[in-house]
């Protein structure tokens, strides 16, 4: 059966190859009418030679088959056959044996005819294969003739192959039939005691079936450990029902409250920051939307970036960190009180910073360090307090090793403090010193604070949600050190071709290429953790967020590497491509990972889940919105960069971008809408719905009655 299939595939393949092959042969002379006649000759000669050898080999095989002699009766083999009979077959044999012995089967082997046919066709192929073209080549007419000859030769070989395959099959069948005859005779003439031994016993064994109560007995099942959890929702579901979150016992309610406050504040800053981002996107399309100084583009842009950086992402990360760090240390948090201090300080920093920026008070233009130092000091102090808190927690851990999540989380806080100090201390910031520090700061902020911390969160929540350990601890460690080594170098790739030292630009580009190592290591680690658990995606509303985050972690980060090269800088630098890239990464990676973790942890803390349809709406609007935002922007800015390289007037680039800015505004609106859903989901997870729950109310009533009886 397999052989036959295989040969049909080969035949089909040969037919598929044939037309382009002949076509190529036809094109050759017209292209190289004089120069490559000899090459053509060689090709044709080789083809014919190959065919000739194929025919010889096939003929040899056919001979071998013909020569295979008859074998003597092998009782051992027959016994094995008898032992492998199925219950039904045994039944037939036993009933037949009871009846009288008469009749015999006659098989006429057709092998002779087949072999004759096969040899004749091989002879035919041989004669057709002989006229090897060796001379008279070069003329178009000759070539066409050769091709025409070649077609029947090939067809002949194919027919030969088919016939041979059939011959082999028929020969084998006849051999089998012979053997079957012998087996039948053996079964018929088998002595009775042997038949009992071999067949009756075997049939009994084959007929044995389990009763399905061998282990459980006849007593009805009971779930006295509460392991079975049935979805009791009936009716037609609007969205697929996903697995419910498991309520986690033994979380200190005080810690739980702290974590929830962090996440709640983060949600507020997400809404605030992206509302402003949305408005900025609209301003690209409608620049006269307002004429208020506090709302002008240049002032609002840093309000947007800083609010989503320090307000949303940082607070969400820290909130999740407060859950993860004590958990993987298997101990309690060192100080809940200090946790609150950080929350106050960071909120104060973002409020004051946003007001300052809108009032026109900023630090001098460097991206993400627009907050003046007194404001950023609040943020830094908040980080320092949390660092001490986390370190003290880890110091009293009850595990020997420090789980990798804590490596990432604690290191990211250390690094964030270092970069803030480097960025705000004035001694190296005159002239281009400022620019060098700026390049360093803005990229370390992204890579060493947001990315590193978020990876730490993923190293805890991804295995937890998949309910299996991380694929490779070593890959996690490799990615950790490689990230520090390469990421630290890449800051100045934002100033390629500028007047900062050329060697520093080169170091940044090399570092950007090196980022492939931690990114591939990390992405591989996450993807491989999914191995054997991919089916869980459809049962879970958190895992899809992780999957999107992982995909963008790989693509977004590698895009960063691609953007860093000098040649790509020519096209993309200064255009909106950078904006698209930062959204692919900060949004596609960081936000999706944070959402995944938030949807995983909050129901565990509150016991309440958000409606699945609202979570789905959040997911899809965010994802589709992000793609609408980034893809047109990348496309448009590539065109714009190309236009610039042609030396076209600048205003043409502005006109060119108009439709892509509109798409960006549309995508941004979808993203913003998804945040409304997210905020609603947070509300549903945090706040008791105030709806009377039948079971809970009944219990309360019973308790109440019990109390009144006792007091009476």
């Amino acid at each position: 059966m397999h052989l036959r299939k295989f040969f049909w595939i080969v035949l089909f393949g040969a037919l598929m190859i044939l037309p382009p092959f002949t076509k190529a042969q036809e094109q050759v002379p017209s292209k190289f009418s004089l120069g490559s006649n000899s090459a053509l000759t060689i090709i044709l000669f080789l083809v014919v030679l190959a065919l000739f050898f194929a025919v010889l080999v096939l003929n040899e095989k056919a001979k071998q088959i013909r020569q295979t002699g008859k074998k003597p009766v092998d009782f051992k083999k027959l016994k094995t056959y008898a032992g492998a009979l199925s219950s039904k077959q045994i039944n037939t044999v036993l009933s037949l044996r009871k009846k009288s012995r008469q009749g015999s089967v006659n098989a006429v082997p057709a092998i002779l005819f087949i072999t004759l046919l096969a040899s004749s066709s091989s002879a035919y192929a041989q004669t057709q294969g002989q006229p090897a073209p060796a001379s008279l080549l070069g003329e178009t007419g000759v070539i066409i003739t050769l091709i025409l000859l070649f077609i029947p030769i090939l067809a002949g070989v194919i027919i030969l192959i088919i016939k041979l395959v059939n011959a082999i099959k028929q020969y084998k069948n006849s051999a089998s039939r012979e053997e079957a005859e012998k087996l039948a005779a053996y079964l018929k003439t088998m002595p009775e005691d042997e038949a009992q031994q071999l067949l009756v016993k075997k049939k009994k064994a084959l007929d044995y079936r389990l009763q399905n109560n061998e282990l459980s007995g006849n007593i009805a099942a009971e779930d006295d450990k509460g392991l079975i959890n049935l979805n009791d929702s009936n009716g037609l579901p609007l969205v697929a029902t996903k697995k419910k979150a498991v309520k986690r016992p033994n979380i200190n309610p005080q810690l739980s409250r702290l974590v929830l406050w962090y996440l709640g504040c983060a949600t507020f800053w997400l809404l605030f920051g992206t509302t402003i981002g949305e408005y900025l996107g609209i301003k690209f399309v409608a620049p006269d939307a307002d004429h208020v100084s506090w709302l002008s583009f240049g002032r609002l842009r840093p309000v947007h970036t800083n609010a989503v950086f320090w307000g949303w992402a940082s607070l969400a990360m820290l909130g999740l960190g407060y859950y993860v760090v004590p958990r993987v240390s298997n101990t309690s948090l060192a100080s809940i009180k200090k946790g609150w201090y950080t929350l106050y300080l960071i909120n104060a920093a973002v409020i004051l910073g946003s007001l300052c920026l809108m009032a026109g008070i900023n630090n001098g233009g460097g991206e993400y360090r627009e907050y003046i130092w007194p404001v950023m000091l609040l943020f830094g102090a908040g980080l320092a307090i949390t660092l001490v808190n986390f370190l003290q927690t880890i110091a009293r851990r009850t595990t020997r090793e420090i789980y990798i999540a804590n490596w990432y989380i604690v290191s990211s806080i250390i690094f964030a403090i270092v970069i803030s100090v480097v960025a705000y201390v004035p001694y190296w910031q005159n002239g281009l010193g400022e620019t060098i520090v700026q390049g360093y700061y803005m990229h370390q902020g992204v890579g060493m604070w947001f990315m590193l911390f978020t990876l730490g969160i993923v190293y805890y929540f991804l295995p937890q949600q998949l309910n299996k350990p991380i694929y490779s601890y070593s890959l996690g460690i490799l990615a950790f050190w490689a990230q520090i080594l390469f990421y630290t170098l890449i800051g100045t790739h934002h100033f390629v071709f500028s007047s900062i030292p050329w060697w520093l630009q080169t170091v940044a580009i090399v570092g950007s290429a090196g980022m492939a190592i931690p990114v591939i290591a990390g992405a591989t680690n996450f993807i491989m953790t999914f191995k054997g658990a991919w089916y869980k995606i459809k049962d879970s509303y958190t895992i899809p967020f992780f999957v999107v985050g992982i995909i963008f972690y790989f693509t977004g980060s590698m895009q960063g590497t691609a953007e860093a090269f000098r040649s790509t800088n020519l096209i993309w630098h200064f255009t909106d491509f950078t904006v698209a890239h930062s959204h692919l990464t900060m949004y596609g990676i960081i936000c999706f990972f944070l959402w995944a973790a938030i949807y995983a942890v909050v129901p565990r803390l509150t016991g309440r889940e958000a409606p699945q349809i609202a979570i789905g709406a959040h997911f899809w609007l965010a994802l589709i919105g992000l793609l609408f935002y980034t893809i047109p922007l990348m496309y448009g800015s590539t065109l714009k960069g190309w236009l610039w390289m042609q030396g076209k007037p600048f205003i043409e680039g502005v006109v060119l971008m108009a439709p892509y800015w509109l798409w960006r505004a549309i995508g941004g609106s979808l993203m913003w809408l998804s945040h409304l859903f997210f905020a609603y989901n947070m509300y549903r997870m945090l706040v008791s719905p105030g709806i009377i729950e039948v079971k809970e109310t009944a219990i309360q009533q019973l308790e109440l009655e019990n109390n009144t009886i006792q007091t009476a």
Partner: protein
Amino acid sequence: MELFDNHKKLFTTAFLFFAALTMFVAIIPAINNQNSNAALPGAVPLSADAEKGKAIFVANGCVACHTQQVRNVDMDKMWGGRPSIAADYADNHRTDIWRNTATLMGTERTGPDLTDIGNRQPSVDWNLVHLYNPRIVVKESIMPAYPWLFTVKAEPGKKDIVVNIPAAYRTGQQGKVVATPEALYLVAYLQSLKQTKLPDGTTAPEFLYKRAETQKDATALQELDGKALYTANCQTCHQAGGEGLQGAFPPLKGSPVVMGENLEMYVDIIMHGYDARAEYGVMPAVGTNMNFTEHEVAAIINYERSSWGNQGKKVSAEEIKKIMDVVKLKVAQE
């Protein structure tokens, strides 16, 4: 491994690793750079007004869209005569105790680069109108409007600078639009942004990634794209349709200068500016600022004489060359 199970050793190692790399790629290069560069000898320090203007530029986040760097790549040639070098930025120091140095190199070019804007667009009138609402002079612009840098006065005083705003862009207020000191500071800053000439004997770094030039220089120069030159250098004031802007910039459509016989005056205006008519703003010396060649001037003149219904005589570069020499002599004598 002991290192991995001891939190003190682990996090100290990570910190030291990061701090060492930071020294190597950020702090040491930054210190080197600030110590080994000084402002160019020809650099003019910012005036008091321009200094205040820079503060307004910073406060309004203009750097979000405007770069101030000419990269050493061919495509950046349009923003300056030579690539920017470290010395161009050496004179930037910490603003005050609250605010960091504003080097303002920028990372996005949603709007044009401003390194040399003082040469490219020196007209105060244009800058003020443009700040009030950029779309008055550049229809396609998406730059924010800054009307809060202006006040409305029924009777402007003698010293007040009145900005002529078309009615379509006035939101129904009566009176004259007057530039506030902030607007004038900002324009002073923009006007001060000029690339400093390198000292004699110093060669500027080369522009890299040159566009492949076709080997027909002589003919190619004669067939320069007059329209592109007009768009880049003239259009912001005289507009795409050549109609100018009433009360600010004169029309070129049907203009007696463009269509007239006095080619010498025409060339003089392009090269050295014009301020003879009170009802319009002052025209800066666009040609001299941008180092126009006779080929470029001829291309612009031919474009202006053959557009918007204008039908003037074509000129040749040789003709213009002669006139330019005469005009240059005259200006030198004055």
